[in-house]
């Protein structure tokens, strides 16, 4: 700030000591006032964009078929309807997929269909018993951990629960 003031003062020499002082005062006043105006305009703008707007962050459960249809250790590609809406827009139904695996001890995991590298849709290669992503060759085990890069994070999971024999898939688990 002081640099700006000094630079501006140098734009043209003042004739004598008194006008030099007055000139310096003017420069300080001009820079100061513009500083206030700038801050007053920048603050709401920054708040506007940097704070998270009120959003749909509620849990929604979607029906994803019968839990009994799952076989242990056999990943199945399941499609289900989900409501998506952001901001003010009304919820619109969209079709979403998940890779659902039932472990031998009846725990059901639903993986997000997006590779954790750059988001491509990966598939289950039964012969190799692993998930393979066609985009850059990432591979994941049946429990979602990374077998081969370039991915570094294990597969993301949806919340799951079973009610009355029906598999319900919930929101994506964060971290």
């Amino acid at each position, binding site marked *: 700030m002081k640099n700006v003031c000094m630079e501006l003062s140098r734009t043209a020499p003042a004739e004598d000591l008194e006008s030099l002082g007055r000139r310096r005062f003017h420069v300080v006043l001009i820079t100061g006032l513009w500083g206030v105006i700038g801050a007053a305009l920048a603050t*709401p703008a920054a708040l506007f964009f940097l704070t998270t707007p009120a959003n749909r962050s509620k849990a929604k459960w979607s029906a994803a078929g019968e839990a009994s249809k799952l076989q242990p250790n056999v990943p199945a590609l399941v499609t289900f309807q989900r409501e998506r809406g952001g901001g003010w827009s009304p919820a619109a139904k969209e079709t979403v997929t998940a890779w659902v695996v039932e472990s031998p001890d009846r725990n059901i995991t639903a993986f997000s269909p997006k590779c954790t590298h750059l988001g491509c849709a990966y598939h289950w290669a039964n012969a190799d018993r692993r998930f393979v992503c066609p985009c850059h060759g990432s591979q994941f085990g049946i429990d979602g951990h990374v077998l081969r890069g370039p991915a570094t994070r294990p597969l993301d999971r949806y919340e799951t629960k079973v009610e009355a024999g029906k598999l319900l898939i919930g929101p994506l688990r964060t971290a």
Partner: protein
Amino acid sequence: MMRQLAVWLETRAGSGSLLRRLLNSEVPASAGWPQVFGGVALFAILVQAFTGVLLALNFAAPPGENYKSLVYIINGMTAGKIIHNMHYWGASLLVVVVVAHMIQVFLYGAYKKPRELTWIAGVALLLLTLGFGLTGYLLPGDNASYWRAVVVTQIAGHVPLAGDVANRLLVSTGDLGALTFTRLFGIHVLVLPAFTVLLLALHIALVCKHGYAPAAGDIRPKKRYFTGQALRDTLAIFVAFAALSLLTFLIAAPLDRLADPADTSFIPRPEWYFLFLFETLKFFSGSLEFVGSAVLPTAAIVALILVPFIDKRPTLRVARRTVAIGVVVLACIAWTTLTAAAVLTSPNPAVHAPSGEHTAWTRLAPEELAAIAGSPQRAALKDVPDFAIQGAIVYTTNHCDACHRVNGQGGKVGPPLNGVAARRDRDWLQRHFADPQKVSPGSIMPKYKFSPRDLDQITRYLLELPGN
């Protein structure tokens, strides 16, 4: 390091010396406070552009979406209300300052040779400013703006020849639809700004080239813009900004309820700076309407453009420019009289006439109720309790309408909420919000952890909903 950056920029772009040259530009010794209005006008345009961009990044133009996105900006985004208010009041400020600037230039004869082109560019900028005001106010999608859009497109459509073009451009033969509002938005945000940037560049370049017009007979040596005139400009801009901020924080921009094309009782009126035209139109009814809506305004614009060619005499001191002063005084009197007449003779737009058709607040969709919070109608609608509006705001920000229906609007995943008071009591509702599955087994409703105040307000609001 800053010094090195400055040197680098100077050798590559000559920025430092350009800035120095601009700041040291010569201004006449007679330049003073009357010459600040141009700078304030430029500042006002920049504020509108700035707040406008912030709004445009979050606004959806099509009917229905426009209102919802605006309510979301106001209620759901931090500082959204401030930015919206500033844009609204900034428009009025811009009109006032632009006209003040024009009057000052006119009175001082600063349009004379070689500044005729500067003046003409200025007239074009005045028209663009009015164009911004006209299109901008048709965008919000509330009842007032919808009916104004209907009236404006009707008036435009009635002009012989040009009216047909206007109707095609705005797709306004018949009901106004998505295309009309999307195009209005595009005009406001893309077309008008493009022309404004070009004309501003021309106008400012010409002002830099010719300098401020000196007062008649001023032969004193010129002074430098920085710091004297720069300080005056800064102070004037600061005062204008302070006034704008005061309005922004104290008075909310008006937002009526959602546009209702079936509302036959609403009386649309234009923004205050167009009221004089609105009043003029009353003198030209029926087939003569285009005289008031097109012929007279065009004649006025042509007259404005021709000013530097009508008055070619050497500059006189302002106090001796009797004709110019007379013209300004007459124009001010005419404008004030017409505007006052418009205000006094038309019914109060805040109250719908007749009151019997005013929807009870308990029957409004939650979004519309929530929107009342931001509007001046709040004071007029005394029968709407605060808890209802706050409750509606809690309802809409949590998107309860995704699963529940209130007054005909919302999803059908969960039970409709009208008449819930007959089925459940306050205590049940509050326990249900905290843990729906515990109170209502099998429910897929998520848990809501409201603040005590929000919980109280949404519960009281829901309990007021009438049965169907």
